[in-house]
């Protein structure tokens, strides 16, 4: 079976997963209490108006027709209109993507850059102070609730030390880069960095800790395998064995785990955005939940699921590239 075929197969599986997500969401909406029309119009709306809206929105149709309408809409990218603001949900999702993406990427970069070397050092110098500190750090990292960590960072670094701003960010990455391109001024970019530093650390800490642990234990497992002894017997430089052979093989399962943990990252983003008043998808999701704004909520969750599936297929693609055996068996 070729790699292309394998990936097509994974794509179809992914579509199946998305269909499942959409169906569950639709089911939840169907059983959720409260009349949508009332939610849309507010408590005081007249009976006639409510009937009118029900008719217009197809709420009087049988459930399977509503479902078919909904899925059909999704297929052409129609996520419906927000009950609360009556805006196009697709737009409301898209306009919030950059902020969340910036945050997620920044956190991932923080995590990778710190965690992998830390894990390698920890695994290759077992039972040294470096190993103990890395272990302690990762223990604290996976045990600290990130909203609380965010608050503590604001308190200590923002309020007491005054190193970072604590309010809502004045500028996004896109506009900042545009300004840089147009005027050559980097001040907006530095502002952006200033504002994203604490949220990125907050969101990234859990992942840094997780990857450090995975790298350490994966590396220790891998170092115990017979091929390592065989490779050392060839007389290769020790660091070559450690990086080219062992680290590489360690990273393969780690990347898979990270793909599966993307959900945790998104959950973390929801919290982090709330703590830092960060204008991303997560914050919008909380607003939608508070307002019981189903179309908006569904739109955001479907978007997250799409991202999850896409990233996991990408992980498989990387997988089949570095380790053809595992992917194709």
């Amino acid at each position, binding site marked *: 079976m070729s790699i292309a075929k394998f990936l097509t197969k994974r794509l179809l599986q992914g579509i199946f997963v998305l269909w499942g*997500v959409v169906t569950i969401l639709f089911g939840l909406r169907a059983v959720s209490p409260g009349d949508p029309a009332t939610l849309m119009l507010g408590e005081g709306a007249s009976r006639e108006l409510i009937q009118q809206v029900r008719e217009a929105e197809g709420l009087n149709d049988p459930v399977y027709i509503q479902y078919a309408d909904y899925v059909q809409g999704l297929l052409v990218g129609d996520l419906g209109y927000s009950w609360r603001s009556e805006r196009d949900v697709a737009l409301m999702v898209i306009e919030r993507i950059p902020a969340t993406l910036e945050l997620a990427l920044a956190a991932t970069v923080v995590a990778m850059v710190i965690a992998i070397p830390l894990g390698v050092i920890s695994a290759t110098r077992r039972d040294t102070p470096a190993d103990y500190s890395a272990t302690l750090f990762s223990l604290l990292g996976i045990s600290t609730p990130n909203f*609380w960590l965010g608050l503590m960072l604001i308190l200590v670094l923002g309020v007491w030390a005054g190193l970072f701003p604590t309010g809502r960010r004045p500028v996004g990455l896109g506009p900042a880069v545009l300004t840089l391109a147009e005027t050559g001024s980097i001040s907006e970019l530095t502002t952006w960095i200033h504002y994203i530093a604490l949220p990125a650390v907050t969101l990234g800490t859990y992942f840094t800790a997780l990857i450090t642990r995975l790298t350490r234990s994966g590396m220790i497992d891998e170092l115990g395998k017979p091929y390592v002894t065989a490779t050392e017997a060839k007389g290769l430089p020790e660091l070559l064995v450690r990086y080219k052979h062992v680290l590489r093989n360690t990273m393969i399962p780690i990347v898979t785990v990270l793909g599966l943990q993307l959900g945790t990252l*998104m959950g973390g983003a929801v919290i982090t955005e709330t703590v830092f008043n960060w204008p991303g998808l997560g914050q919008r999701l909380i607003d939608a*939940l508070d307002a019981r704004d189903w179309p908006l909520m569904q739109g955001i969750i479907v978007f997250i699921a799409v991202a999850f599936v896409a990233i996991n297929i990408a992980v498989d693609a990387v997988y089949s590239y570095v380790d053809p055996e595992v992917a194709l068996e």
Partner: protein
Amino acid sequence: MISERIKSNLSESFTESLLPKLGVAILICIVLFAIFAPILATHDPTRTGYYDDSGQPYPPTGTSYETQISQDGEITEVAIEPSDEHLLGTNTVGQDVYSRFLYGARVSLVVGILGVLMALAIGVPLGLVAGYYGGRVDDVLMRNADVMLAFPALVLALALIGVFGESPVFVPDPIVYVDSFLDIGVADGMPTAIPIPGTVTIVAALVTWVWFARIARGEALSLRSEEYVKAAKSFGTPDRSILWRHVLPNSVTPIIVLATIQVAVIILLEASLAYLGFSGTTLSWGYEIERGQDVLRTRPWVAVVPGIGIMLTVIGVNLIGDWLRDALDPNVDNSTRGA
């Protein structure tokens, strides 16, 4: 069911390193806090406001909390600093932070443990059966698991709570109940029932069971080709009995390790939901942090104390999880077999 070798591994790694001891010590403290909260508490954790030196209630009875804010323009008068009366100060509505810390431990532990037990009850049987029989059953389960994984746990939890409401369950406090017969030192006025966030617990189980199903499936899948399982089949042992006598006991180790880690995950999930205001009980560490957020600059203890509570509990649980994993993982003792 637990063999001598596992016991000796457990005790060996316990005595050899500091971290498991630390974990057990922390967790014992937290559990004691939780159980004896009514005895250790100095105030009713739910009673707002406080009494001034002359014994007069402050703010004056009948004045609502909001009114108090609008009159004075600030709320700092309600959240008072740590003192002899309030060991760790009070929160923004004048509730005793120390007492709420103790009661918060109850909610965290109960949600964590109940959630994991429910997830075990759903995930393990499904996973074992799917892995052992394979085929269609397995396909259906694994596709479902894929769908579940595509939802971020927190987001799914929020959506479910949005649908089903928060439905707190009031559980009578056994310590207070016992105290009503034998005086064991519970101060007057302690609540006789504590609210457990019902939906949160069920939702925690719903978003967690997949991981148990996956690991149980993997174990069953590898165990079914073990020769002792084949041997059991060869003399006609029914499948049910093979699952119960061979497959389950031999999958227990990784499931226990996962269960421990998931207790920590669920405690963090509950705290996050409570922080976002979806918990259904205000007697929760996460909720307290949210309350302390607004006065972070001036009254940091309101948010700091419950945060430390969460952190310590989760550290304790994770340390025990690490200890179990290191001691129970059969791969670990390979070092002595190479010779």
